[in-house]
């Protein structure tokens, strides 16, 4: 990966005002999620029975109000945001590594191995995974491992396809040929030559994958199948808010807006990166 490719991409990204705005919004959201709970005296699980379903305001310590159990929504919103972001990052990283390994091996080895590996991906993508995940949470029970596993199961398929496509496009290049001629083993070639060279486009798709993962986690949590009480994620908070919409509309507002901003800015940034690197999804 030459310096000019990265330099040119960075310049193009800087010229994209929407992407620039998205980076700022993201930075603010991440800072809020990390720092905000410390600003407020309340904790995630403390129940304030004197102020149940209390409206937001500055006169008391519950700046975003409280929920039906008297828990502070300012703290819970940002805790929930932390959970959602953590799932996005961790499950994103795992999906990325799985997809990277699988896709690079399939693309590099080619032939019958590639055919078989890609059929597996095709069959898995053909299955309605969302319903399967719901199904699995019913059978195994609801815990965070099942949640992470489900999210990864859905996330790694696209990544594997993209990595394979990128690998195919560099497989015949001279530096690979040189490595083969030099007697490097396939494992070494994939690890030392293929993976570093597909990382650029893969990073672009990873930024687009993270919001999908966050979305899926919130979806499951919204249905009551993801993050479990007393922990909060943006999905559980939105579900709670949607249920109390008429009596306590503020419960919905903060997590809803946070999730919307987070997803929009990640998507805009991902689109900006894709344009900057000028990568296309392989067909």
């Amino acid at each position: 990966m030459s310096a000019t490719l990265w330099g040119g991409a960075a310049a193009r990204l800087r010229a994209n005002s929407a992407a620039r705005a998205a980076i700022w919004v993201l930075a603010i959201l991440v800072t809020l999620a990390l720092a905000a709970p410390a600003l407020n005296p309340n904790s995630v699980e403390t129940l304030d029975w004197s102020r149940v379903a209390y409206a937001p305001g500055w006169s008391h310590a519950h700046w975003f109000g409280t929920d039906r159990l008297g828990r502070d929504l300012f703290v819970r919103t940002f805790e929930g945001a932390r959970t959602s972001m953590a799932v996005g990052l961790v499950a994103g990283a795992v999906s990325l590594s799985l997809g990277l390994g699988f896709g690079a091996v399939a693309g590099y080895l080619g032939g019958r191995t590639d055919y078989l590996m890609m059929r597996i991906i095709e069959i898995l993508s053909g299955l309605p995974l969302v319903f399967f995940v719901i199904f699995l949470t019913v059978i195994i029970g609801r815990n965070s491992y099942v949640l992470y596993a489900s999210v990864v199961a859905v996330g790694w398929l696209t990544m594997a396809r993209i990595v394979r496509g990128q690998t195919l496009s560099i497989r015949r290049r001279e530096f690979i040929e040189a490595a083969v001629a030099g007697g490097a083993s396939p494992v070494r070639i994939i690890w030392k030559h293929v993976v570093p060279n597909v990382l650029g486009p893969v990073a672009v798709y990873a930024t687009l994958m993270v919001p999908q993962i966050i979305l899926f986690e919130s979806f499951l949590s919204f249905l009551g199948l993801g993050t479990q009480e007393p922990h909060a994620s943006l999905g559980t908070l939105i579900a709670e808010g949607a249920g109390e919409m008429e009596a306590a509309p503020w419960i919905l507002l903060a997590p809803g807006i946070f999730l919307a901003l987070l997803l929009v800015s990640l998507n805009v940034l991902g689109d900006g990166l894709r344009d900057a690197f000028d990568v296309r999804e392989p067909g």
Partner: protein
Amino acid sequence: MPRYFLKRLGAAIPTLFIIVTLSFFLTRLAPGGPFDEQRALPPEIMANLQSAYGLDQPVWVQYGRYLRALSHGDFGPSFRYKDFTVSELIAQGLPVTLELGSIAMALALAIGIPLGTLAALHRHSATDYLAVSLAVLGIAIPSFVVLPLLGLIFGIALHWLPVAGWEPGSIRYLILPVVALTLPPLAYIARLTRGGMLETLGSPFIRTALAKGLPLRTVIGRHALRPALVPVAGYLAPAVASIMTGSLVVESIAGLPGVGRYLVQGALNRDYTLVLGMVILYSSVLIGMGLVVDLLHAWLDPRVGFAR
């Protein structure tokens, strides 16, 4: 073309069979039976219940019975809604879900395609920016955020529309759920149409058509639209999937009596037969729609059917 269709059908049937088999054995592997969470029952009653639901038979016999019943459209009894069979629950809920889903799909196409076309024709105009920003918002923000926020605005603040509820034949209750369900696919379709149209409008045969002196309207309608819609056709199957998953949350939020709500309820109640039936139902609809979409794709882009 018929050969292509047969090939796709040949792939769909085993997929469905795998789904049914996998789902069936997953429910049977699950720890505990469907009656565990009730208070402890005397062993005789438990044995009676087990035999009434066929659970005392070896699992292969159960599987055979389930398949045989399934071929008659019988999904077995629901473990939680004691007086209903899963088929009855489906028959109650499916019309609502289908109505909701088909309106959303039709609207997404009817608005998305013209919007994307207009945006491509008037690049960098207000319409274009509207379409592009709508696309970003619609793609990024999920229905379960859009619907409560819409409810907050139009239901609680303005009192224009009901937040939740259902009355057969009444459109008022459908408006907000339909909007929430339509936005994501609408956004994708507008974006894909815009991209496809921009690419098509730049190609030589369009320049030729325009140079012949054909009016723009004819060029778009007769020549540009079909190739420009190829990416949209490719997206239709995911669009159906997105509407179907969206209907799960939308029905739960808006309290609509569709099948999506049964899947969620069934999942939370550990109602194995109900969830099994729903997974099979949703999968078959998805696979069936996939076939229809493949045909449409082949019609729009004749190269597809002949590849390989």
